């Protein structure tokens, strides 16, 4: 298993089924050609382990009749159907599959049906190539005229899994003289299927253009084992292999008489691929120093998967096995060899040459500087929001995500929403004013730009200036520190004061510095997040007299000690925020007042919960000499 992970594929899971194990492999999408069949995975393992691979039998005795005694066969469009083989098998005995076959199907999550259907399903899982068997006697005519043709407009096919599909243009069917038998490459038809009384078969193996398959299964919303395989693109060469394997099993397990010949329409034969490689190229791309004998050792192991190599001067010419449609170019054969060599043998190097002089990116520099000024000098906090939105100039034609039908063209609606949401948590956050910003993209018909949106909203306890004044002060300050003026869109709303500016214009006349200086200094290296509660919080105030000079922090300490629900509840403290909001001294006494915010991670707190804590806090405070809660 570790070998599969390191050399081939990720493993999703392993399940014990009966006495067997099912390994769920996440086959990479460029390996569907071969590895969606068990043999493909077995070939990888044979190379990795350098062990013999015993291929299943593909030989069978031939009867003396000919396929042509029973059928004629034609393909209308050989662009979409790249190969088709038909062969008649007579006198099969339909029955249950032998235990080994039924067990293997069960292990891979399939339901055994009868020996004929099971054999075709099994061969597809073994080799990737789907196979189908028709009941020959259910097809129309004496000599059956079989053709793969375009579906007629509105033509309907009853499929194996039940139900009827109406076909559209450019969908293909396998048809006899009377009607369409099935949806070619997608699913077999119901009225030509094998049943308990079937005697004679027409075995069909076809290959299709993968794009045709994908379009058809999408149009019909019909995903099958066959479409999953065909969509990946299957080598036309596999049709041969899979037909022979099917015939061998039909002969062995169902007593089938295999016709002495077949009809094979294969107009453009797949050209044998030869990948070329020099040792120096392999070493250069992978970053290793293999000798030619080491490389040849790997190539020899790869023979077990069907590769054949020769060396002409310093160039290796490597014949690629037919099913491996993914291996053609230099980089692809390098990958194949490197996988088999083992990526774990590639040593880390940090030897990047300094042959390149990087420039400072003006936009990133100023974006970072503006954030720094806003956060560190002007007291604004940064938010990230979705660039996608339910409004904007650019609209999607196919969004599947709720509320995300557009790209936003303005920051204003986002910032307004942020103010509305966050002001609700002002007490929890211990803030009497919300000051926030986002620096991100907006997009519209004529382009996109980096925009800054900022917003200010005061709570009822705020004693400073009005929101609009705060906002223009901040803008003025920011512009002064930057040394540039921008065209701001400023508005006062119910939710607060909001401004937006096009940053690219704002910085347009500023020069690009020669280094990033300190703008990237703020670090998150030692930070950790504490999950916040999804339940509402409760706000209570407490005010008390203390001896003159008593520090606010000392009072807070006493309060915090009593903040939990009870001493041993294990729920942690409910007191999540203490904010002093009023302190004054009168004669020999100092008055302190605090907002206390209570919230539980586990549930919504009741008045009773909070009152109990409040009483304990009051009691604790009053035991201190000179303290008196008002």
């Amino acid at each position, binding site marked *: 298993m570790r070998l599969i992970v*390191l050399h081939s594929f*990720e493993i999703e899971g392993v399940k014990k089924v009966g006495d067997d194990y099912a390994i769920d492999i996440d086959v*990479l999408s460029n390996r569907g050609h071969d590895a969606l069949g068990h043999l493909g995975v077995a070939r990888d393992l044979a190379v990795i382990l350098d062990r013999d691979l015993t291929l299943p039998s593909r030989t069978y005795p031939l009867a003396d009749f000919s396929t042509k005694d029973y059928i004629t066969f034609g393909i209308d469009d050989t662009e979409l159907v790249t190969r088709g083989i038909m062969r008649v098998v007579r006198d099969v005995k339909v029955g249950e599959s032998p235990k080994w076959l039924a067990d293997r199907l069960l292990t891979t999550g399939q339901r055994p049906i009868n020996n004929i259907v099971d054999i075709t399903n099994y061969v597809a899982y073994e080799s990737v190539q789907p196979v189908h068997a028709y009941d020959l006697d259910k097809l129309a005519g004496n000599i059956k005229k079989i053709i793969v043709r375009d579906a007629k407009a509105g033509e309907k096919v009853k499929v194996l899994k039940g139900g009827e599909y109406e076909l559209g243009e450019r969908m293909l069917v396998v048809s006899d003289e009377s009607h369409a038998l099935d949806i070619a490459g997608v699913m077999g038809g119901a009225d030509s299927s094998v049943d308990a009384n079937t005697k004679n078969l027409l075995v069909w193996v076809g290959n299709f253009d993968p794009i045709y398959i994908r379009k058809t299964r999408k149009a019909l919303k019909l995903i099958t084992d066959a479409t999953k395989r065909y969509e990946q693109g299957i080598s036309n060469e596999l049709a041969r292999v899979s037909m022979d394997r099917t015939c061998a099993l039909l002969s062995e397990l169902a007593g089938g008489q295999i016709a002495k010949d077949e009809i094979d329409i294969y107009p453009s034969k797949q050209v044998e691929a030869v990948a070329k490689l020099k040792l120096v190229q392999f070493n250069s*791309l992978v*970053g290793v120093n293999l000798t030619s004998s080491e490389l040849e050792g790997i190539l020899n192991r790869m023979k077990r998967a069907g590769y054949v190599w020769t060396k002409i001067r310093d160039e290796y010419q490597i014949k690629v096995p037919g099913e491996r449609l993914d291996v053609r170019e230099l*980089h692809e054969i390098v*990958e194949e060899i490197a*996988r088999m060599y083992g*990526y774990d043998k*590639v040593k*880390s190097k*940090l030897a*990047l*040459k*300094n042959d*390149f002089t*990087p*420039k*400072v*990116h003006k936009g*990133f520099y100023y974006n970072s500087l503006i954030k720094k000024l*806003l*956060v560190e*000098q002007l*007291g604004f*906090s*940064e*938010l*990230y*929001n*979705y*660039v*996608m939105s339910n409004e904007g*100039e*650019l*609209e999607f*034609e*196919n*969004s*599947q995500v709720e509320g*995300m039908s557009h*790209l936003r063209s303005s920051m204003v609606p*986002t910032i307004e929403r942020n103010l509305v949401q*966050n002001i609700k*948590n002002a007490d929890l*956050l211990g803030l009497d004013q*919300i*000051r*926030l910003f986002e620096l991100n993209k907006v*997009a519209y018909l004529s382009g996109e730009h980096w925009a800054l949106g900022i917003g200010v909203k005061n709570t009822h306890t705020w004693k400073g200036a009005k929101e609009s004044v*705060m906002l223009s*002060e901040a803008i003025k300050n920011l512009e002064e520190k930057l040394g540039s003026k921008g065209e701001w869109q400023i508005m006062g709303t119910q939710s607060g004061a909001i401004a937006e500016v096009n940053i690219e214009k704002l910085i347009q006349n500023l020069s690009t510095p020669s280094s990033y200086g300190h703008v*990237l200094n*703020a670090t*998150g*290296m030692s*930070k950790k*997040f504490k*999950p*916040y509660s999804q339940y509402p919080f409760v706000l209570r105030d407490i005010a008390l007299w203390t001896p003159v000079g008593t520090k606010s922090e000392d009072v807070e300490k006493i309060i915090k000690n009593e903040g939990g629900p009870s001493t041993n509840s294990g729920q942690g403290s409910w007191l999540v925020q203490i904010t002093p909001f009023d302190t004054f001294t009168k004669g020999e006494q100092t008055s302190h007042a605090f907002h206390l915010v209570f919230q539980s991670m586990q549930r919504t707190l009741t008045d009773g919960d909070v009152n109990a804590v409040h009483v304990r806090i009051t009691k604790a405070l009053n035991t201190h000499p000179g303290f008196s809660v008002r």
Partner: protein
Amino acid sequence: MTHMDKSTPRGHYHPLTLMLNDIVSIYIELGFEVTEGPIVDSDWSNFEALNMKYGHPARDAQDTFYIKNKKGPDGLPMMPRTQLSQMQVMYPLAHKPPFKIVYFGKAFRNENMDATHEAEHSQIEAMVVSEKANLGELKGTIEHVLSKFFGTKIETRLRPGYFPFVEPGLEVDMKCFLCKATPGCPICKGIGWREVVASGMMNPIVLRNGGVDTDKWQGFAYAIGWDRLAMFKYGINDIRLFNAGDLRLTNQF
């Protein structure tokens, strides 16, 4: 009138900004140049030039948002980029090799969201084109960046992966630094390794689309999930918190 005097409390950075500062600083130290591409991309630079030709499954509408009312120079609908790899052709078209660049931002996937799936996720991608860029350097660079970022030596392992714009294509797993493959570990789930980077040697088809002479130059590129890495750097359990516009997140940083 001085509201913005010393009594003005300091604001807070969003955790993704702090993380970006930390990561980009490491790249700048290594001699990388920061660059950026547009979020609204054309069919050519988002797909075609990256070896995802017409009919490629990644182009499916279930993965890509297509914009109804904006077409690219090729007459095809534009889309918010589905990954940042546009720069693998855009930058070379405007600059001559050798180069080392880093670029970051949001990528868009037309999929429903939950605690681990984000339709608008943040990524950091890096690319090196030189005469001898290779898998050893790729591994070394990634290990250096991760080790500096986590403040402890990070080991990685390379596994076969597939992305149309790189070949060989590799997934990079980071050895868990929290536990020794303990069940329930928030980082590695007990496996001992955590997939953090998608990478590979640049496909020569892509380099040529960027106007690079592949007889002389070769390259590697890799993408780090900016938000995903932030999740286990800071212990954030829901990827959607980043884009939620919520000060309850920001003000902890």
